């Protein structure tokens, strides 16, 4: 491999990591909700889309208010996006899923699809159907490697995406594995009745799971807005499908699986776009999903349900 080919490879790798980080953040919401109530929350992509809209709105308000400090603006945008989407996530669970607990599995699934359509149309009505642009918030980057006729660049926004995602995932894993709340969530995932008998408020724990998933999706929404600079009311659909694919690829219900799945989907897309064709990148990721599921039906890190009774 000559230097130029290696350089190109590294550039695609960086692009793929940034994209994969975003998919991973969304995928965690799918996998956690599935883990705790065995339901695919098809409205989760819309929560992410709402996060992106809150980001654009907050950025414009801050710009109008004359806030010029980028770190301060970012912090405020993240806080706003998380607060809003957490409220949406909580409400969606409360209104559309909780009344159906104990109903046949198909009912909440249909309810989720309905919620997804409702939220899309609600945003289209209130925000308009036209794409919304955002002026670049973070410009520039660093050149990691300047070679003969090629360069490997990492933009500040890519760096920000990767670092923030790694920090969130580390923090989140600690939260699930070490804290009382995380323990309660895992207990509800394994045996809700028993969790209740031990004094865990199961409904509240499920609500908090939705809130946490929504918060991570909000961060993904903010990052995507900054990365691509344009959003519309329909971005939740494809991103949702991709993140769902990532969760299934990694093994639905598994937290590290969702992160790994997200990363893989991002890398596949970046490499396929670079080496083959951008037009067929979705075909590539979904083909990999099918291949993995044929040989490992539980996903890469999912576990088959065998337990000693």
């Amino acid at each position: 491999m000559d230097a130029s080919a290696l350089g190109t490879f590294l550039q695609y790798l960086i692009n793929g990591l940034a994209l994969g980080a975003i998919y991973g953040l969304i995928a965690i919401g799918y996998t956690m909700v599935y883990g705790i109530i065995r339901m695919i929350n098809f409205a989760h992509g819309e929560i992410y889309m709402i996060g992106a809209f809150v980001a654009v709105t907050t950025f414009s308000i801050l710009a109008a208010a004359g806030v010029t400090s980028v770190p301060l603006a970012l912090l405020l945008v993240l806080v706003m996006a998380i607060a809003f989407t957490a409220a949406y996530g909580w409400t969606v669970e409360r209104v559309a899923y909780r009344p159906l607990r104990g109903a046949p599995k198909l009912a909440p699934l249909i309810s989720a699809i309905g919620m997804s359509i409702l939220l899309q149309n609600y945003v289209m009505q209130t925000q308009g159907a036209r794409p919304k642009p955002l002026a670049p918030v973070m410009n520039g980057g660093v050149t990691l490697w300047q070679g003969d006729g090629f360069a490997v660049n990492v933009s500040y926004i890519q760096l920000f995406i990767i670092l923030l995602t790694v920090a969130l995932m580390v923090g989140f894993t600690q939260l699930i594995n070490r804290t009382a709340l995380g323990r309660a969530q895992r207990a509800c995932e394994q045996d809700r009745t028993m969790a209740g008998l031990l004094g865990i408020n199961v409904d509240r724990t499920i609500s908090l799971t939705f809130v946490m998933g929504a918060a991570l999706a909000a961060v993904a929404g903010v990052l995507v807005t900054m990365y691509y600079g344009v959003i519309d009311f329909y971005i939740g659909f494809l991103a949702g499908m991709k993140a769902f694919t990532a969760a299934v690829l990694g093994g639905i219900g598994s937290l590290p699986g969702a992160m790994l799945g997200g990363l893989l989907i991002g890398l596949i897309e970046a490499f396929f776009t670079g080496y083959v064709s951008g037009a067929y990148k979705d075909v590539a990721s979904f083909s990999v999903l099918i291949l993995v599921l044929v040989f490992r039906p539980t996903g890469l890190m999912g576990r088959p349900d065998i337990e000693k009774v």
Partner: protein
Amino acid sequence: MSLLQLTGVRTNYGPIEALRGVDIHVNQGEIVTLIGANGAGKSTLLMTICGQPKPASGTILFDGKVINDLPPHETAKLGIAQVPEGRRIFPRMTVFENLQLGATLGNPAHFDEDAAYCLDLFPILAKRRDQRAGTLSGGEQQMLAISRALMSRPRLLLLDEPSLGLAPLIIRLIFEVIADLNKTRGMTILLVEQNAYHALKLAHRAYVLAQGQVVLEGGGAELLANPEVRAAYLEGGSH
């Protein structure tokens, strides 16, 4: 006044009447056992006390308070702990995490002391402390389920067939622990058993449940000597 008092409790599963007007009470510091055949409603009774399912009618008083409509996490808060049918340990968590979950409502200041107490009660659990609970043997899982229930320092301990499917030696150990909890800690216990011989020997008082109703009650030793009980639940049974 009794710690737990059920009056005319009825519980339905859909169209099926699982409990058809049950009157029982458990006094502070007592071991009361409930024996009966499969399907008599014993487990339903324990679950109804905990609030899932809720009784269709009748009254459940705990410490003088009506708890009919409280969900399980609320009855647990009042101090009712259950070691349920099938043990229901959390299989993909460690033994220690299971104990931590048992202490959800406990005072954090008591945690170390209570965990040490349980691991001392069942030393095998100390050896398995960081092992996933799903890998334990049936007897070890039962010990863990009992320990987990003790971690909240309950005022009333409900035990649902703790001897089911266990080797005779383990059964003896479990019953010794139950007796000891009552004697040294003054634990109030409602014990559901099919193993009538062991249960009646241990209990201060006993009820016989059949088809969702109490058909017989009396002292443990008294029922053990009762010819009807002997014929239905003991002869040819597990001595």
